[in-house]
């Protein structure tokens, strides 16, 4: 794989790594408390399994992106591509679930009797929104990375055959 194919992949991976790192940071530092009827009502990312899953997957993606920068592209290109596919699937699934829970917190579900919570803890909601925006950037960049890697693997094999 010559330099012109390898430099965009490295750039995309660095951007994805930074985005997932920022998403993790923003989600972990989000907390807010509200006083309702004399009780203190705390909102943290720990309270929702979905947001915990989002944080875990973002950390895994950051560490994996850092590690995949140091893999020799000619020998292990296809293995990296396959693991990229699995990690991309995890990333997209965690982002989608977190957005679903976010929509539930913002607008509630009248059929199930779940009231929205963003009115009481607005700082928490804004933090989670910012984290999800960073996660969305990471998802788009990762998807482009996987498609671009696929194109390079195809060229690699075609020239060798």
């Amino acid at each position, binding site marked *: 794989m010559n330099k012109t194919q390898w430099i965009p992949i490295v750039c995309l991976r660095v951007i994805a790594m930074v985005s997932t790192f920022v998403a993790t940071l923003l989600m972990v530092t989000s907390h807010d408390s509200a006083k309702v009827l004399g009780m203190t009502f705390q909102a943290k990312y720990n309270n929702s399994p979905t947001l915990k899953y989002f944080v875990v997957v973002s950390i895994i993606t950051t560490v994996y992106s850092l590690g995949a920068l140091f893999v020799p592209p000619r020998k292990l290109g296809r293995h990296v591509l396959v693991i990229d596919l699995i990690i991309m699937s995890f990333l997209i699934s965690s982002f989608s679930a977190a957005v679903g829970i976010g929509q539930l917190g913002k607008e509630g579900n009248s059929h199930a009797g779940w009231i929205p919570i963003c009115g009481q803890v607005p700082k928490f909601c804004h933090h989670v929104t910012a984290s999800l925006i960073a996660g969305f950037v990471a998802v788009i960049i990762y998807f482009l990375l996987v*498609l671009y890697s696929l194109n390079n693997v195809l060229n690699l094999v075609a020239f060798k055959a």
Partner: protein
Amino acid sequence: MIIMAGEKVADGRSIRRWRVTISMVVILLRVLALFATAAATIVMALNKEKHTFAVATIGNTPVKIAITAKFQHTPANVMFVIANGVATLHSLFMLSMLCFVRDKYDFKGLRFLTAAALDMVTIAVVSGAATAVAFMGEVARNGNSHARWNKVCDNFERYCDQGSGAMLASYIGILFLMLVNMLNIFEYGRLINPSSNNPLAA
């Protein structure tokens, strides 16, 4: 996996047998993925349950309210049905391409790239939908005490179980689609016909 320069074409019989095996396995996996995603779509789309609650008593007769749980009350379920429908159509399209449009048109190697890229897009969309339903179901089953959201599944057992079944079928479909994609990526080198310039991707 990479055909070396010194490999003789007289070994073509074993390569041909390998190509046929891989093609058969890919077709089988695509058929299984088609059935799994079709099952997920249909099972979730038919998810509906009615439950009658006795709320109060006026005199001697209890006042009953009937509440229906439909799948479209949750946006994640709607996305699940649409995504799995798209995956079913994708599998159907790919199978028809494999079985009916074998070597008629010369795509100049773009056939493999298109198939693999479309597979990746489908995997992404379906995995997003399936996990969103999984976490919505988790909130419905366990509630969330911090957000004061009560659980719903203790009154609507069949609705929740049917939703879990659809989600499980969707995850199995994702697994098969991923296997197909990995097979395509790893075996592409052997699927190339060494005596011609154009790669004949399966």
